[in-house]
């Protein structure tokens, strides 16, 4: 790998880490994920694209918030209203596609007696 652009970038980042930075550049950004979503859609996988768009929105959440959201979606955790409210909250926080997922879950769970 020596000599490749990615190698040089890693060298520079390592120098910054040694100088005290804790950032390794391993956090993906919403922008990168949306670009990757566009690539996936252009190659015909709209489901992968939708997943990556949701992922782009989830970069706005902390690890804890994200794990809480997962917990909420597990069976029997939330009432219909709770799911709807959480979806509305997410829309306000500009996570519309994650919100859609919650709304879809609310309908489906309700129909199966899970919420």
């Amino acid at each position, binding site marked *: 790998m020596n000599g490749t652009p990615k190698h040089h970038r890693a060298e520079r980042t390592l120098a910054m880490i040694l100088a005290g930075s804790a950032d390794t550049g391993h956090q993906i950004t919403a922008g990168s994920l949306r670009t990757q979503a566009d690539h996936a859609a252009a190659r015909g996988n709209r489901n*992968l694209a939708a997943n990556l768009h949701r992922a782009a929105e989830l970069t706005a959440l902390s690890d804890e918030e994200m794990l809480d959201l997962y917990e909420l979606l597990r069976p029997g955790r939330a009432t219909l209203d709770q799911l709807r409210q959480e979806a509305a909250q997410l829309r306000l926080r500009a996570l519309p596609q994650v919100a859609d997922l919650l709304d879809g879950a609310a309908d489906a769970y309700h129909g199966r007696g899970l919420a």
Partner: protein
Amino acid sequence: MSSPESPTRRRAVLNARPVYRDRLAVENADLGLVAMDGPHDPAPSLRIRDGVVEEMDGRPREQFDLIDRFIADHGLDLAVAEAAMRLPDQRLARMLVDINVPRADLVRLASGLTPAKLARVAALLSPVEAMFAARKMRARAVPSAQAHVTNRVDHPLLLAADAAMAVATGFREIETTVPVLADAPINAIALLVGSQVPAAGALTQCSVEESVELTLGMRGLTSYAETVSLYGTEPVFIDGDDTPWSKALLVSAYASRGMKLRVTSGAGSECLMGAADGKSLLYLEARCIVLARAIGSQGVQNGGIDGISVAGAVPGGMHEIFLENLLVMWLGLEACTGNDTLMSASDIRRTAHTLPTLLAGSDLLFSGYGAVPAYDNSFGPSNFNIDDLPDYLVVQRDWMLDAALHEPDENELTGHRRTAAIAVRDVLDALELITLDDRHVDAAVDAHGSQDMPEIQSGQIARAGRLVLDKGYTVANVARALSQRGHHDLAVRVVAMAQLRGDGDHLHIGALVNPDLTIDCAFTAPNTYDGPTPQWRPGRERRAQITNLRHVEDVTAIPDRFTDHGPPWTTLGPAARSDDPRDVVIALSPAAGERIFTTLSGLSLRDVVTAIGHELASAGLRPRLVRVHRSIDLGRIAADGSALAGSGWSLALQGKGTAMVHHHGRPPLAGEELLSVAPRLRLHDYTQLAANLAGYLHDRPVDPVLIDPNGEPLGPPHHLDVVALVHVERTAQQERPPTEVTVR
């Protein structure tokens, strides 16, 4: 007649075969114990109104369970569905094996097919047809493989050394897990560092409880995951405390932290949970795979996995396993094709399970080749383990197929193991997690498994693992520790692995990271197979890698072992026909005693000839040593010998040790007695053959020489010697009359 209480000896021997430890089941559709085309599987159907799926596979929307609902609302491309569903099953099946129908067309059609339709079409394919379809349909151009790297005690230096070996052997994804959850962060660090030693770019995974796994990923200590499991029936989903929606969120959560992810499914999990809904393995798995695509997973790990033995118990089970792998490919997703669980006590049966995958190829042939001894595999023994590697590499060479692995140079390998063990020792020490002395490093380099390792005080690794979590250590801490302890290049590689995740190029279908940190995936390195051409076979470099195993021999060097004991025996002159009725000819091949002096069984040819001569003399005969030059064929040598013998009898001997008693007038190959298995012959066999000659000559009853019974293969250890020695005989052959020879 034998009673059931006393089986025949034959039956008793067969009963002891390992395959009888595997258990087989009568098909039982109600319990889901049927491979495919189950009697309760629904007929495919799809009704769409105003862009909404109103009915799927015989079930109206109001009766949809959670899986139906998610698939109907997200998993079908309604723009192609109606036309795709109208295509007859057999037409679709034929398209899969038609080289003129492009892969892309089939992937597009699959996006409009319901699970029942997919299962029904796949079930039409014979194993060979399915293998061909897989060759055409897999996503990435070149197959790769994932390794399990674990050990019973989570010894971090052994994990590091084994991760390095796995990468040096060709694995591009390395997966670990733990017996003790708290050890997980240390395992993750050991793999992250060890895997980057021989080459950059291998992805690593620590398969543990979801929140810990996600945390390790968020910290940059792992780079991919495949623990997100899908099931084909709703009750199993709910029992697993998940739904398609919670799984979809989880899949997006991993992507949001830049982690590659594939979901896991596989036949038999619903049976094992007692909720198969009376459906066949293939139909339920088709539901999982369509769901996998619907939630946006780039790939699927399937092919039995934990349920492989359920599939193994039913007729057609292995066929079904291959078909479920194929379905993943047909849907255009990364196929990580199982073969990761030891599915039989029989070596023949477990190999038969895996071979079709190797021949057809897949994106990841194994979702866990056990790169450690079976006893050290914390996932349970894999279908292939490190002890099988030499066999695996020879099978790969036999078929000249790219089965993803190669044999690392032993010295380089030892170096990689040491570098990996030292680097991880240094990181753990620098981060004040655990201190391990040189004994541990040396043992990790040398060890076959954890039984060869010095003990680590109980609880120390778990304690260190908790420290990693509590102190918030990330990949940055690991990189800094590596650099501070002088492992600069390794630190750069570890940082590079973290940075890849920032870009997200490895989130695409079938993505693997090359040693130069470029990405091969379905988009950048697609499978464009279009029929038989040399282009699809391994290229020159890869061919050399597959071919040159450490025990490959140069046949031209072999004869030294058999020819180094000269000088040639003395030639006395032309051999004449004798009138002496006691005259017996010991007829030698062109090179026997001329260039070849040792037989295949390691006997000195001089000793053999001397023993034969003594035996004949003690029977009152007069043996004479004659070399036949014009033929290397034992029968012809014998016939030429017996034609000269006053008694009409000869005993012919080739340099490699094959021997025959022959009587003049008989056709060359109609020898009275033949010792053909030269590698097994002992001196007393030749003595007895000589004694028998005397018996035949005097028309006495004779006991033919019986070679010691031995079921070991003859050809594999000896045939190269035969090729080499026959070549020596052939070069010594001359068109000239026989000559008399003496060993003195």
